[in-house]
């Protein structure tokens, strides 16, 4: 059967030439049927809608076998590899070669300097205290060398003598010339960077699997994988696969058999031939073989050593003990165990075009003596019996529909599946080629992987109805893809359903970890994949994945079974939903709508249609991530009715698809989506694994030490006894504080045992009379608010007015004497005159008050009383005359504006004033001058302010004085009177406002008055009272 060739092949163009098509995106694998072919079966039963149903088949079947992951994450099978490598940071740039050279010189000094060091050694003396003759003393150099062990201080000053020696010996001292070393290192680093992106040397993978014969119905396999820091110890591990109650279990409890090798394992190739399992292990320059016989321990057979790096080793599936080896130089050998490897091909260049790649690959083919020889440009079938018999099997070109830049990544003989089939993978596609019909791919997939797949594993179909499975694995991102296909013998190859991506270890379950641990775990899990293998039994497919860090993971997929059971399950699932699902309010509303869909004539695009109801469903689903599976069922449950409706209206052609749909539905209901939905046991396994990984990592940390300088001698020695005392005291204090807290008491200083605080005494009160110098007097005057007056006094500016006042006084005295009226006021003057020089003036005013308006004086409120009694205010009276005038012209509007906010208080003050003003008016019968003086005296604080405001007018003082005098003496002139009255009325409002604004200074004055000049005012009052 296997020897049959398909009776008809899918149509295919055969074109020569290099590929032209450029890869624009990686989604070519979807939405295409490829080609189409008429099936063998004759037109189907009867007519349907006037159309015969023909059995057409597409190259890419859309509905196929469904494999559903049992768990949403992979399972770690082995404890983390203790010495597993994790790439530390990004690959170093080739330009950093200087750092590497430095490292080499410092840490491998014997390699870099030993020869020259020996030669020069006798001329240098490193002993500090023992100078030798004819030698250069290098005692100081010792220090420099000693410090190299430590992390270097960046700001260290460069020692000139080191530099001098460096310049002297730089060219001589290195065993390997620096220029050469640098060049080679740069080359190597460039190569390593390329390796970081894609490593061709691990093509084929380092994970092998040999099925062992079934004993007692136990499914046993032997896994072969390397471990250790350099992946250089080969493990043969017997693994038992159990499938209890549909739950697969991989039993790794057997201990593995370990062989320690001399080099890193690059590839493990396994095949079961007849009754033996054969294992080929490839390292860089050597290849070894092991044989696993039934019931026996794995046994090494033979090892060969090659001169050039070996790139491929494959075991013959036909003849026991035959291997093909390919090396970078382009030589290919047939190696039969026990015989010398026989070179059958030596290809110096690439096969079809110059790709400048050293990668060569060799595989067996259907004929035991014909080999596949491949490189990046294609593959040829070579007969090992004759030197010149070879023909193309596959080449990058138009025929295979390749894209420009496409290169062969790995080739695999699919002997266990089909004797004539070969699998070729490129960055974009996977090809199956039948060697009976070379160049034309029997089947082609766009695998849509992001990085090129370099591991492949093929699993045969278990019976004719199932499909063959191909697993492709890539290094980066550990991508693994499952492809299914059928046919190849009588039927042409057809891909079976869409490709499926399997879970990768880097998407593993991550418990809530601290960020730095999370990072560690991610780094560890995210290393390059290094191998892939799989085994199948009882409808389960177990995939093993191996990472470069030496960790082994597995995942199991379950074949999704027939529809009838799924229907049953579905109804069961539906019951569940009703219990678990959220408010099913919208369910009845949804169902009729769904039913109505088939009747609609759809003109809308599918996106719109798909997005409405499903979207809500999905959103709900997301929110209930725990119930995800169940909610899915709900939706599908409502859909089954839909499909049934359709089945009834479209009888013949759709049953298959409806079956598929039902299958699909069931599949989705089982398919786990969220890693969080993993089973508890698996979560536990992961937890343990992560813990042991983190343990390993914490133990492993090491880095260059910092150099420590001793600073003991710098520190001042502290006496121990003092320290003890201090400690005790703190303890006591703490206790006291605790007690206070407990009892909710105040913790006062007295209660503590702290040393008493220094009490700073309050300074004595200052008596201004003690300080008789100018400055002190001025200060005390300005404290009392009479700073200006003090200055005026001091500078003698008010001398004229004083003289005036004196004169007036004398005149009054004269007048009084003339009238013979001895008044009480006379006693006032005498009583006040003792005060000071000014008292004469003030007494004169009080005289006025007392004499002219005694009733007024007594009824005055205290506030007005003060300015009147204030001795210093009065000297300003000369300016009073000008005040009303300026008030009316310039200031009034501003002042009023500025004082508005105080209007209510000003009203009160106005009321206070109302009395004197009315009194003023009542007293009109009094001589005119008296009334004017009185108003002036009322306004005296205002004058103070005014004075400061209009100080610039002082230069015209003389003129003003004249005016004043004229007003005093010419006041009886009737022309002046109405103006005066008018001014006063104006003033009454604005003036009071003034007063109020200067309320603060008033208060101050009052205070000072209370303190210092109480003597002056009180006798005044007394005496005035005495007068009545």
């Amino acid at each position, binding site marked *: 059967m*296997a*020897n049959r*060739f398909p*009776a*008809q092949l899918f*149509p295919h163009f*055969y*074109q020569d030439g290099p590929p032209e098509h*450029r*890869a624009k995106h990686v*989604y070519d694998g*979807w*939405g295409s049927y490829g080609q*189409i072919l008429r099936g063998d079966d004759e*037109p189907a039963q009867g007519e349907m809608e006037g*159309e*015969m149903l*023909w059995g057409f088949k597409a190259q890419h079947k859309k509905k196929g076998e469904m494999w559903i992951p049992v768990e949403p994450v992979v399972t770690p099978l082995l404890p983390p590899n203790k010495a597993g490598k994790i790439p530390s940071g990004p690959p170093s740039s080739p330009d950093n070669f200087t750092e590497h050279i430095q490292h080499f010189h410092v840490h491998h000094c014997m390699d870099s300097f030993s020869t020259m060091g020996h030669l020069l050694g006798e001329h240098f003396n490193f002993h500090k205290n023992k100078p030798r003759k004819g030698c250069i003393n290098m005692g100081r150099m010792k220090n420099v060398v000693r410090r190299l062990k430590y992390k270097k201080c960046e700001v260290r000053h460069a020692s000139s003598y080191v530099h001098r020696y460096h310049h002297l010996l730089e060219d001589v001292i290195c065993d390997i010339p620096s220029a050469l070393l640098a060049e080679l290192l740069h080359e190597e680093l460039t190569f390593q960077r390329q390796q970081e*992106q894609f490593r061709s040397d691990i093509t084929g993978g380092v994970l092998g699997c040999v099925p062992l014969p079934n004993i007692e119905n136990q499914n046993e396999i032997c896994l072969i994988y390397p471990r250790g820091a350099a992946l250089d110890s080969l493990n043969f591990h017997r693994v038992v696969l159990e499938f209890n109650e549909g739950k697969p279990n991989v039993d790794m409890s057997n201990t593995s058999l370990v062989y320690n090798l001399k080099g890193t394992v690059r590839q493990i190739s396994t095949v079961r031939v*007849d*009754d033996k399992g054969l294992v080929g292990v490839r390292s860089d320059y050597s290849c070894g073989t092991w044989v696993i016989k039934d019931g026996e321990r794995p046994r090494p057979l033979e090892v060969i050593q090659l001169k050039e790096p070996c790139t491929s080793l494959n075991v013959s599936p*036909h*003849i026991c003990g035959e291997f093909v080896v390919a090396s970078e130089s382009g030589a290919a050998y047939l190696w039969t165990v026990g015989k010398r490897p026989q070179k059958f091909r030596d290809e110096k260049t690439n096969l079809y075009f*110059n*790709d400048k*790649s050293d990668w060569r690959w060799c595989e067996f083919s*259907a*004929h*035991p003596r014909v080999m596949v020889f491949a490189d990046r440009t294609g593959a040829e079938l070579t007969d090992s019996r004759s030197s010149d018999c070879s023909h193309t099997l596959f080449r990058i070109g138009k025929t295979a529909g390749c894209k*420009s*830049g*496409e*290169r062969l990544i790995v080739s695999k003989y699919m002997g266990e599946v089909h*004797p*004539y089939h070969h699998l070729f993978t490129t*960055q974009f596609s996977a090809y199956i080629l039948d060697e*009976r*019909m070379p160049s*034309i791919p029997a089947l082609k997939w766009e695998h*849509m992987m992001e990085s*090129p797949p370099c591991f492949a594993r093929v699993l045969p179909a278990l019976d004719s109805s199932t499909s063959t499975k191909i697993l492709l694995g890539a290094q*980066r991102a550990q991508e693994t893809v499952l492809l299914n296909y059928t046919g190849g013998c009588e039927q042409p190859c057809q891909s079976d359903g869409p490709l*499926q991506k399997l879970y990768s270890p880097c998407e593993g379950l991550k418990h809530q970890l601290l960020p730095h641990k999370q990072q560690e775990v991610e780094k560890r899990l995210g290393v390059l994949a290094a191998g892939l293998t799989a085994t199948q039994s009882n409808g389960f497919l177990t995939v093993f994945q191996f990472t470069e860090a030496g960790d082994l993971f597995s995942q199991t997929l379950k074949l999704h079974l027939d529809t009838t059971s799924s229907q049953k399950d579905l109804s069961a699932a539906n019951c569940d939903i009703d219990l678990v699902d959220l408010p099913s309010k919208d369910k009845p509303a949804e169902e009729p709508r769904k039913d109505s*869909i088939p009747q609609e*004539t759809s*003109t*809308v*695009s*599918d996106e*719109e249609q*798909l*997005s409405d109801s*499903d*979207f809500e*469903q*999905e959103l709900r689903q997301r929110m209930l991530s725990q119930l995800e599976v169940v909610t899915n069922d709900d939706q599908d449950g409502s859909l089954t009715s839909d499909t049934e409706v359709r089945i009834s209206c479209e009888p*013949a*052609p759709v049953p298959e698809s409806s079956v598929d749909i039902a299958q699909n539905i069931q599949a989705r209901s089982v*398919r786990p*989506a969220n890693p969080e939905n993993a089973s508890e046991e698996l979560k536990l396994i992961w937890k343990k694994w992560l813990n042991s990984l983190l343990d390993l990592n914490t133990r492993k940390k090491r880095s260059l030490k910092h150099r420590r300088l001793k600073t003991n001698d710098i520190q001042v020695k502290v006496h121990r006894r003092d320290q003890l005392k201090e400690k005790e005291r703190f303890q006591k204090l703490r206790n006291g504080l605790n007690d206070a807290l407990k009892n909710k008491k105040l913790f006062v200083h007295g209660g503590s045992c702290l040393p008493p605080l220094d009490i700073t005494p309050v300074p004595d009160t200052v008596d201004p009379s003690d300080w008789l110098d100018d400055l002190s007097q001025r200060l005390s005057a300005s404290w009392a608010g009479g700073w200006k007056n003090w200055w005026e006094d001091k500078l003698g500016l008010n001398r004229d007015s004083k003289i005036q006042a004196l004169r007036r006084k004398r005149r009054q005295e004269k007048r009084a004497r003339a009238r013979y009226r001895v008044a009480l006021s006379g006693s006032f003057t005498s009583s006040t005159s003792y005060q000071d020089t000014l008292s004469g003036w003030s007494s004169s005013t009080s005289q006025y008050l007392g004499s002219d308006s005694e009733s007024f004086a007594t009824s005055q409120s205290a506030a007005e009383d003060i300015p009147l009694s204030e001795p210093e205010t009065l000297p300003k009276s000369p300016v009073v005359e000008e005040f009303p005038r300026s008030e009316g012209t310039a200031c009034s509007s501003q002042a009023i504006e500025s004082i508005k906010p105080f209007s209510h208080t000003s009203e009160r003050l106005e009321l206070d004033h109302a009395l004197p003003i009315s009194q003023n008016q009542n007293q009109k019968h009094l001589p005119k001058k008296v009334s004017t003086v009185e108003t002036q005296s009322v306004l005296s604080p205002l004058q103070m302010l005014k004075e400061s405001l209009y100080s610039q007018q002082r230069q015209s003082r003389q003129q003003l004085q004249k005016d004043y005098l004229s007003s005093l003496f010419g006041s009886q002139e009737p022309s002046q009177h109405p103006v005066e009255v008018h001014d006063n009325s104006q003033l009454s409002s604005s003036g009071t406002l003034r007063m109020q604004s200067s309320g603060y200074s008033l208060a101050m004055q009052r205070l000072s008055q209370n303190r210092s000049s109480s003597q002056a005012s009180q006798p005044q009052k007394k005496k005035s009272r005495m007068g009545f």
Partner: protein
Amino acid sequence: MDDIEAELGISRSVGNEDFSDSSEDERVARKIRPPILLHSSTAQARAKESGFHESSRLCLKAIRDAMLHHHWQEAAQYLSAYSQTLEDTTVNKQSLACEIIWRLGTEILQHHPNSRLEDFNALYEQMKNSGVKNYAKICLEHSFHLLLNGHIYDAKRQLSVAASWRYGKQSVPQSLDLKLIHAYCGFLDYVIWHMKKSSVSEAEDNSSNREMHSYFRQASVTLQEIIAQPGVWDPFVLSYVDMLEFYNDQEEALKVLQNYAYNKDYPSNPNAHVYLYQFLKRHEAPPAKLISILKVLHHLVPSHELMQEYCYLLVNSVVPGHLEESLPVVFNLLDYPSWKNDLDTWNCLLTVMTVFKRKGLQHLIANEWKQRKDFWLTMHYRAYHGRKDSELNRELLLVKAKVAKLLGEHGKPDHFFKYKLLIIFIFLMF
């Protein structure tokens, strides 16, 4: 991805400027050589992308992940969002988005539980016209979809509409697609012709007969056209030959088949030779002719199942020299492990060997044996094989034993020692 290629190309050519000592030709070659995309790093391209492009790229990634994990409904949601990309102002990206949406959209519809044929039609129609560059391809896929769902006439209509489509300058892949469209159009003509034929044969009706002929004419013209192109055209050749045979145009049919089999421009297709062989056999061609056809086939595919027939033809042939050729044929067949358990082949070998022995041509057997000795022993005559054959197919064991006996005359007798011992042991047991 093409941007990166361009970038890589530039950097490569820039780098090459440094090699002053490399010859001019080599430098040119280096410039032309497309960079290998063994690994595609997209980080460079992402540096300058706009927010819109970034979000659409992320969306596409989400669709991809969902589809790769077969979460079709999730993918459908994302796709509805992704349709915004069609508004991209850059022409390149827009046409790319068209293609992506078409591909992803159809794939999702294939697996989405509530998709209907109308949805497919709507999607195909829309994408056909929005991404004009893919018109032919989408038409082809659309008709495939209709065909697979049993709508043969709709599919035929689609194809004939697409066949008459003209738009600007055709690109190479598009012209190939148009050729395929023509071919499938003809193929469907043939299918309809075939249906008519089976219905006509019952009722002799002139008008339907005429209709059938018109289908034949249409089909023959287009099929002839595609068959003239180098390629694998098994279904087209078969249908064309079928029609020619129906109208008794054997010569034309033979010409077509011979061209298909022997034209150097065509790939070596074993089926082409098989068709020719079957055709000649149907028309009772002389054995010499058949042998000549099978000789070519043997050269191409020594493991073909017709080789047994070839072998018998050679053995029975009267032409001198043919008998001698038969031995390598059957030996070659058994070189292939896939034939190693086939009783008929071993019988054939036994027959041929006995004939040779009878005719005194043992040196030829010795010659063939010498070439294969090293691997035949381990491949066919290990103790394990004897044990297994005794379990599964004792007849085979017998035949193999007889062959071994004949072969043993030519080699050292101890070659088969273990095997013989086993056989004796087995026969003693039963």
